[in-house]
């Protein structure tokens, strides 16, 4: 995976590589990326935000959400971001996941700046590097569980490529669904599943593209305590087994304690950083 970023960043320049070097990055993607990488970890942070500021316009008023946040996430780290509603924790996650751009400041992936990349490249980075989990699961209601899980692969590959490798992808999806314990509900629609199952499905969808970083926005916010605990444990085990970098936003301290490190946000600024108990 460092190779991937090196390609993006230095060898070919960021804009070109993802659009022109589709095959090479695809071939890299097929290697078991989310499995532990063989040695050679970059020493710097996996993903970091440098003095990011973000404001939203609400009618006439400009509401500052983030006011200069610096954060570094190590590779393989499980980081919790907690804070009250409106403290900017979700916005920070969106900025780190390239869903949005900071007004000021930089977002770096392995030291390479990402927020000023062309839209198309950022789209592709979102597809390959990041996996998202949301509070409301955000599964596509028209698709079955299996199709939902395959969606990132469908987005990444052309119809022809996907068709050629459909067996491989299907196996990969069922493997991951097995991992999250949903291999018996492949044909079901999201509406036919419980909240916990949907969240597991969302995790499976996030993992199928073999991301390096998993971004979870209140993954337990909509679940009862026990199911929430199960989901958090699943994330923790993924982090442990696959060395996946995980950023989890939550407002629940108990859930946050599962992480290695806890970042507390308040009014758009980092209030405290603490190691989990």
């Amino acid at each position, binding site marked *: 995976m460092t190779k991937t970023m090196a390609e993006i960043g230095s060898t070919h320049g960021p804009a070109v590589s993802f659009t022109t070097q589709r095959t090479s990055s695809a071939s890299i993607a097929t290697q078991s990326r989310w499995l532990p990488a063989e040695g050679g970890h970059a020493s710097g942070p996996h993903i970091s935000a440098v003095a990011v500021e973000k404001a939203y316009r609400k009618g006439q008023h400009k509401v500052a959400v983030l006011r200069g946040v610096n954060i570094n996430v190590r590779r393989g780290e499980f980081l919790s971001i907690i804070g009250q509603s409106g403290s900017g924790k979700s916005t920070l996650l969106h900025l780190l996941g390239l*869903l949005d751009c900071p007004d000021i400041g930089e977002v770096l992936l392995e030291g390479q700046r990402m927020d000023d990349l062309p839209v198309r490249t950022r*789209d592709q*980075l*979102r597809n390959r590097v990041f996996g998202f989990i949301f509070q*409301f699961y*955000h599964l596509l*209601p*028209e698709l079955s569980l299996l199709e939902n899980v395959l969606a990132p692969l469908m*987005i990444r590959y052309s119809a022809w490529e996907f068709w050629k490798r459909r067996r491989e992808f299907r196996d990969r999806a069922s493997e991951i669904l097995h991992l999250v314990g949903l291999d018996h509900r492949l044909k079901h629609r999201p509406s036919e599943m419980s909240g916990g199952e949907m969240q597991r499905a969302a995790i499976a969808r996030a993992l199928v593209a073999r991301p390096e970083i998993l971004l979870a926005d209140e993954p337990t916010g909509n679940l009862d305590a026990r199911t929430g605990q199960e989901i958090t444990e699943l994330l923790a085990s993924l982090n442990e087994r696959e060395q996946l970098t995980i950023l989890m936003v939550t407002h629940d301290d108990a859930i946050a304690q599962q992480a290695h490190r806890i970042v507390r946000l308040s009014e758009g600024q980092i209030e405290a950083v603490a190691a989990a108990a």
Partner: protein
Amino acid sequence: MYKAFLSLRYLRTRYIAMASIVSVMLGVATMIVVNSVMKGFTSEMRGRIQGLLSDIVIETNSLDGQENARQHFDMARKVVGDKIAGMTATVEVWGLVTFNFGGQFTTRPITLIGIQPDEKAKVGPLVQYLESYQTLKDGKRVIRDPLRSLDEPPTWNLTAQAKAWRHEANQRRKWIEDRLDSPHEASGEGDEFHPRVSSVNHTETSKPAAANAPTPPALLKAPTQTRPAISPTLNASATKSQAPKAASAAAKNPFEENQETSIPVAKRPPVNEDDPQAPRIYIGAGLIRFPYEDPKTGERRMIEMVRPGEDVTISTVSAGRPPTRQDFVATVVDVFKCGMSEYDSNLVFCNLEELQKVRSMVDPVHPEDPDRRGITSIQIKLKDFRDAPEVIERLQAVFSPGIYTIKTWEQKQGPLLAAVEIETGILNVLLFLIIAVAGFGILAIFYMIVVEKTRDIGILKSLGASSSGVMSIFLSYGLALGVVGSGVGVLLGLFFVRYINELEALITAVTGRKVFDDKIYYFPEIPTLVQSGMVFWVTCGAIAIAVMASVLPARRAARLRPVEALRYE
């Protein structure tokens, strides 16, 4: 990959989109049906007009016509001989036809066309329009089989049926005459067409009639019967007073006879009253028939006023200055019906030679020389109608425009064809607006779907879908909608066109009211013509509208920022 997949999945699962599909489908189906029927009507109509008029007509500007048809043929052949498939000379003049029906005289304006049937058949499908060659049907029921085979060239001979009818009609008339006495005959006097003949007849025949009732030779009940009524007196019963007159009439120069008496033709009165007159005609169906609806039963049928075998009186004008009125009695040989009511209720075809004689277009010195007879128009059939403009150009070089007018049948029927074209055009614009309305429906529904799908769009973007990818989801959704809608519409339209007559019968059966009355439209069934090009363009138009209508919603979807879309909860 996901674009097509998702748009197809949306198509299958969003039932609201069915509304758009149905509207596109109905629009496309309506356009196909209406266009096919309109095209069917026009092509049928054009075929009939062209069949009757032939491709190109050279007309003399003067009613007097020009002499020597053969010379004209040669002139035309010299310039465009290689493109001509057939030519025939005709005399066209307006006139009146009078016949008696139900004790009442009916007079109608006509266009009288002198033709040689065998020659005319070479420039147009004359045989197709003559009823003796057709199977007569009432709906599906066969009333009568063809009386002549289609291989037989058209002639002026009566069919056996017409002869039998003529005989029967004569018998009936005689029977009535036998029962009428002279006061009635006197009241029957009033043959405004042959005043002198009738007065002579009357004075001469009424006396013996009054004396001994059984054989009153001339009852002038109807002008159509005048001539056959005289004939037996000339031949069979031969009253002494008439014989010398007949002899002297026969001895006279026809030219003089024309001048002196108003007996224009019939120089050779039939020997037998069952024999037809020398002038024979094909008469338009619309002139001699009218639909009658029985007020009690509501049943509709055609009342036939004249049948083949009967005689009618025709009045026209002679060539020369000033034109003088000429009347003659002619036997109806056949009824023609081309389906254009304009022609069917206006045209009477007569034998060319007799018409030339009536109109004094015959050289009195050489009455038998066909090259010294006048003609007023030459009908030309081309090998390929597309050559028409070129042929006309070349013909105009030899036929002086001061004397001749040269036109194609399309130019002669310009206003009618233009009217039909405009009608079709307007209909198409209106119908296409239906599809455009369907387009706006798609626009509205798509906007709704985009709003509804805002969250999903956010998900797709978070999964790495690009803006153009999201846009193409909705564009291909619109495309799929247009393709499915117009595909089903094409099938529905073609199905409707294919079974339009059955459907018409069904609607008639359900509503009890005839939708398409073949007696009014002359077509036995609704004519349709499906043009693949038309279907293609209608389909393309519908798909294009569906895609265009989805552009705005798709752009809106593409511009959604993922964060905003995801905040939608």
